[in-house]
């Protein structure tokens, strides 16, 4: 047995040693064993000979790699020589070199850019302590009290919970400083006392917000706001600032990049600014687990508590715990991972492509290489030469790629949602540079290893002559590389097709309101001036309606895709106990539904705002669940949060709305008259371009009340587009990669076919001379190419289909194996295959048998 191992090892030696000494080694070993009588000692001898052989094997190969140098100093010299040769060789064919370097630069650059963004968003350490122990709890274990929402005591006392906090989705406020500069709009979160401790954030200065019922109104600034609005003033703590005209004392500054909830500039104690609760009383809860407690334990307990709360089993909601990192990355994990995988595949494809070119190039340079051998270069040296060439190529590509990566990072930053934590900081930091270096060197090796082996194999002793057996194997290797390229292209194109199809279905999904011609913006009215609301609304509406092109104006407590969860309550047909259903409540002025372009099914609009007339409007599914759509009009309904109000008549029924964008469920909505609310979510319907109205609207708001700036000016269309921003970005990048992949693969196939025809000119000439039809030859060549393409498609599908389910989270109404999308993609790839084969194959029809036969084979 060991003898066989030894024989195998001997076969691994460089050819020279093999030829000269392998037999001698065996014979010597046999002789030594023969002369040893003791069996145990014989066995030991054999073992030792094996070890000795392994050691010698390593030394032999090392000596080859070190070349005639025999030491690292010599190695450096000969590597430098190799590099010089490489550059000369590459410079001789500038166009080809530029193309190769450019392809690599694109592949490496995009991979680096994606690595940078992925690192910044998903991998970098979060600026919180022990972030794996922090989770968001949904539905939030909070309840309403007279002083506002509070954490349920049964939750905070759970043994698994170390601490917990409430926070409210961002409201906007106008921050004014004492130096008279204009108020700047900031995003504010209101949080309970333990918020920063739960998150694991230590303020870099200041004592924090303190208990909510304290006398002093405090505010904590984000690091970024502190720098941009206050110039990083080291004495900011204790200074007074104004938010919506109210004085606050700065009580602290956070470390950089805390940004939770996303995009927050400043934190207030909750309850301080009633009007800043935004359109909703929705609260969110984060909790920090005690050390060594598994999340499942808390989840189980929470689910129990939830079940105990409701009598009706159908009312019990399912509890979810979402890790903090997931909250922060806002569902970008899957898209980023997919993009990273795609860019890796593009890089692999580019390497295969270049390897094929270099591989074929070896045959073309055979004469040059053999001359070098004749001049004394060993085969190992030749092989190293080619490897150096591909490394030079890849280093050039990688360097250029870094420049491209910088641009790529900017592109990604503009495509992905801006407030994603960490996105802004994406750059070429150390881990990313290391990744880029590894990818570059790896690419160089991948590209060069096959050509290097081939060069070594073709320039050794006994490899001369016109027809080497290496050429048939060589063609097989090249064909294999092309098949691999096609399969990668299929995978990338398939993914792109699915994402694109999904995106277009999302765009087509009706949302229930007008996606064009509607401008929306928000105004928060301060609690202190509640009495002025009616007059304010009237004044603003009057002036807005006077603008040219404006068709309708209204306001509500909830704009689609606005920050903040919906307010939910219960409603029932008047007088019918136990028939209550839960609905989303939106308070709206008259004219809002019209301005939003919501289709009216029955009846009329809501009663005027700030009036006393009762009346509600139901959305279709709300009407359906209460009375049935047809018979809802005129019926009486009772509704409320914790109890039920006086009965109010249903004055209208409208279409359902998808308040969260095309991929969100349809809401069953109860629209109530606008009476006591502070948030104006304005909608302005115009026959012209809504964006163009913005300056005029700002002027109007300023005229009516300069202390109330409007904000979040956007059209319904752009809000939807932003909502889909991440998906759109991924789909677009995927299409880019898919296209590049198809292009590279088709070029690879083209090159293979073209070279093959050139190599077989003689054979083809013979066939033609013997009477074969040129079109027949053409057909056969195309058929061969098609077989390669088909093999690539099958291989690609075989890899893609099992993994396609990973894409499910990103797909909308599209099955990951949808044949309606994958079918055409496969057809496309096959078509490209045919074209890429047919174009060079036409050359077969132009072969003159005489020329082909007389040419050198």
């Amino acid at each position, binding site marked *: 047995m060991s003898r066989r191992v030894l024989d195998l090892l001997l076969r691994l030696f460089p050819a020279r040693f093999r030829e000269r000494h392998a037999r001698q080694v065996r014979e*010597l070993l046999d002789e030594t064993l023969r002369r040893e009588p003791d069996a145990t000692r014989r066995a030991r001898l054999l073992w030792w000979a094996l070890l*000795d052989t392994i050691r*010698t094997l390593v030394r032999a190969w090392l000596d080859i790699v070190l070349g005639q140098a025999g030491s690292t100093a010599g190695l450096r010299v000969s590597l430098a020589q190799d590099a010089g040769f490489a550059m000369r060789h590459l410079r001789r064919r500038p166009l080809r070199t530029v193309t190769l370097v450019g392809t690599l630069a694109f592949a490496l650059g995009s991979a680096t850019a994606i690595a940078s963004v992925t690192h910044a968003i998903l991998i970098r350490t979060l600026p919180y302590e022990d972030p794996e122990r922090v989770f968001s709890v949904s539905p939030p274990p909070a309840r309403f009290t007279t002083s506002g929402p509070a954490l349920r005591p049964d939750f905070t006392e759970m043994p698994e919970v170390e601490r917990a906090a409430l926070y409210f989705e961002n409201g906007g406020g106008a921050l004014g400083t004492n130096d008279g500069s204009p108020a700047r709009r900031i995003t504010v979160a209101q949080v309970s006392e333990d918020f920063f401790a739960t998150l694991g954030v230590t303020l870099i200065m200041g004592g924090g917000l303190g208990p909510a019922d304290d006398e002093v109104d405090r505010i904590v600034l984000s690091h970024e706001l502190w720098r941009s609005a206050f110039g990083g003033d080291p004495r900011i703590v204790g200074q007074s600032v104004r938010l919506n005209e109210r004085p606050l004392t700065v009580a602290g500054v956070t470390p950089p990049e805390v940004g939770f909830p996303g995009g927050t500039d400043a934190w207030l104690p909750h309850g301080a600014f009633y009007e800043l609760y935004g359109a909703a009383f929705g609260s969110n809860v984060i909790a920090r687990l005690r050390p060594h407690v598994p999340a499942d334990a808390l989840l189980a307990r929470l689910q129990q508590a939830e079940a105990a709360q409701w009598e009706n089993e159908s009312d019990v909601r399912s509890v979810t715990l979402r890790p903090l990192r997931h909250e922060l990355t806002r569902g970008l994990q899957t898209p980023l991972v997919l993009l990273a995988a795609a860019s890796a595949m593009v890089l692999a494809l580019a390497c295969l492509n270049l390897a094929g070119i270099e591989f074929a190039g070896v045959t073309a340079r055979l004469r040059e290489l053999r001359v070098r051998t004749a001049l004394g270069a060993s085969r190992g040296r030749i092989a190293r030469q080619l490897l150096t060439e591909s490394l030079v190529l890849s280093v050039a590509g990688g360097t250029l790629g870094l420049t491209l990566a910088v641009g790529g990072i900017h592109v990604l930053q503009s495509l992905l949602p801006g407030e994603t934590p960490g996105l802004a900081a994406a750059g070429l930091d150390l881990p990313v540079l290391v990744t880029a270096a590894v990818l570059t060197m790896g690419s160089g090796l991948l590209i060069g290893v096959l050509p290097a082996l081939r060069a070594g194999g073709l320039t050794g002793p006994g490899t001369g002559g016109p027809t080497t057996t290496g050429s048939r194997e060589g063609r097989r290797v090249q064909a294999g590389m092309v098949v691999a390229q096609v399969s990668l292209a299929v995978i990338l194109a398939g993914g792109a097709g699915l994402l694109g199809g999904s995106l277009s279905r999302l765009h087509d999904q009706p949302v229930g309101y007008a996606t064009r011609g509607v401008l929306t913006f928000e105004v928060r009215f301060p609690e202190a001036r509640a009495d002025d609301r009616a007059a304010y609304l009237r004044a603003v509406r009057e002036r807005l309606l006077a603008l040219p092109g404006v068709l309708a104006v209204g306001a509500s407590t909830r704009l689609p895709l606005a920050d903040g969860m919906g307010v939910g309550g219960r409603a029932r047909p008047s007088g019918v106990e136990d028939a209550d259903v839960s609905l989303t409540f939106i308070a709206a002025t008259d004219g809002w539904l019209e301005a939003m372009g919501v289709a009216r099914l029955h009846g009329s609009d809501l009663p005027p705002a700030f009036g006393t007339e009762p009346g509600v409007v139901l959305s279709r599914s709300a009407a359906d669940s209460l009375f049935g759509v047809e018979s809802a009009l005129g019926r009486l309904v009772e509704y409320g949060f914790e109890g039920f109000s006086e009965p109010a008549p249903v004055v209208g029924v409208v279409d359902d709305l998808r308040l969260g964008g095309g991929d969100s469920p349809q809401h069953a909505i109860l629209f109530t008259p606008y009476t006591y609310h502070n948030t104006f979510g304005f909608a302005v319907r115009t026959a012209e371009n809504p964006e163009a109205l913005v300056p005029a609207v700002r002027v109007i708001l300023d005229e009516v009340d300069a202390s109330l700036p409007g904000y979040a000016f956007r059209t319904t269309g752009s809000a939807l587009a932003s909502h889909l921003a991440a998906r759109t970005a991924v789909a677009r990048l995927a299409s880019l990669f898919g296209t590049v992949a198809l292009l590279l693969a088709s070029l690879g196939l083209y090159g293979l076919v073209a070279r093959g025809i050139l190599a077989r000119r003689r054979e083809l000439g013979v066939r033609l001379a013997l009477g074969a039809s040129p079109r027949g030859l053409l057909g056969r060549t195309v058929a061969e190419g098609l077989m390669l393409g088909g093999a690539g498609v099958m291989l690609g599908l075989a890899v893609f289909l099992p993994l396609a389910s990973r894409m499910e989270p990103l797909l909308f109404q599209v099955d990951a194996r949808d044949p309606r999308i994958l079918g055409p993609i496969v057809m496309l790839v096959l078509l490209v295959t045919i074209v890429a084969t047919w174009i060079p194959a036409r050359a077969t029809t132009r072969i003159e048998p005489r020329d082909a036969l007389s040419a050198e084979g």
Partner: protein
Amino acid sequence: MGRELRLNPGMVHVLLSLAEGSAHGYGILQDIERRSGGALRLGPSSLYYTLGRLEDAGLVAETDEPDFGEPHEDRRRYYRLTEAGRARLERELDDLARLVAAGRRLGLGSEGAR
């Protein structure tokens, strides 16, 4: 041509063995083991690798004639020291002797110590 081959201890021993007369593989192995008292053992692979490199450097050469009147076994290959090899070996041993003498003057080492 390039740099001169650096001689490691194994190579020196092989050269030394061949200085006595041409030999074949097994003989060289035995010789080295005896001379070094078992401290240096070459295996078949490393022996022939070493011989190969010495041959490339022109210090040894294959030969058909065994010395010492041993019966010539056809399948064995014999090796002999070349002129260049002899010269190189002498030079190497001179260098080593100088080292040893320098050490002795400092009072280091002793005769026959191991």
